[in-house]
């Protein structure tokens, strides 16, 4: 009986060791850019993208203003 109890314990321990690491591995085995994020360099990329975006938007505002001027000019000619 004692041997049987021990075997059960051993089997339980083995299964625990076998199952738990694999469960843990399953939740973290999906590769993500964790290290990259830890190093903080991702902020640089975001900054670059924001600069790019800001430049495009600024240009869009310039075009917008130009169109506004044209509209005003046409309205002025219309009134004459």
């Amino acid at each position: 009986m004692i041997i049987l109890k021990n075997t059960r314990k051993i089997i339980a321990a083995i299964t625990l060791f076998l199952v738990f690491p694999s469960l843990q591995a399953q939740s973290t085995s999906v590769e993500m850019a964790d290290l990259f994020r830890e190093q903080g360099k991702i902020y640089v990329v975001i900054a670059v993208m924001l600069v790019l975006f800001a430049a495009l938007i600024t240009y869009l505002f310039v075009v917008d203003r130009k169109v506004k001027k044209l509209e005003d000019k046409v309205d002025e000619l219309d009134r004459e």
Partner: protein
Amino acid sequence: MLNVKGVWWKILGILLVGYTIVAGLLGEVPRLPILNETIRNLYFHVTMWFVMLILFTMSVVSSVAHLSTGKIIWDIRANIAVQVGMVAASIGILTGMLWANFTWGAPWVNDPKLNGAAVSFLGYAAYLVLRSSIDDDQKRGRISGVYNIFAFVMMIVFIQILPRLTDSLHPGNGGNPAFSSYDLDSNMRTVFYPAVIGWFLLGYWLYSLQVRMRKIELKISNRVWK
């Protein structure tokens, strides 16, 4: 420099897209095999298709308005909404091919959603060609307006209905769950929906610029100032 009146929605669009760039790259995303970090493409690739859908809907409404009122400006609005929508669709196709190359193994797979998108794209390209090939204003408006309704219905069938009836690699099609379960958790929603609104506002900005320029063009051609 800027007139505050009428500029608020442009600022809103800029802020929302800016937020998307930051939160889209830094925010928490579900850890999924195969997709890995590319799941963040959802904030940018899928957004383009949503923007295209909104713009094409605007276009078909404008076409109906033109057909019922006969006003040229509605035909111009329909045309430009399609133009900007096609820009969004082109970006959607290109980014989709890039994404598919790394997750599905090839830039173009024989998927009903992809082929449907290609067919709709060609359908709208035909609209632009058809419209530019007619010289008479009224005729152009009526013929392209009727065709636009047809193109819109075909687009909805090819992109939204057929892929849902058959198997598709795209989430939300052929029994795949869409935004409800694993695909878009509540974290991602807080980035995705602002992205759609932000990019639509920027698209609407481009659209409004073009419409204003066409209005100027119309005024000039209607009366010649000496």
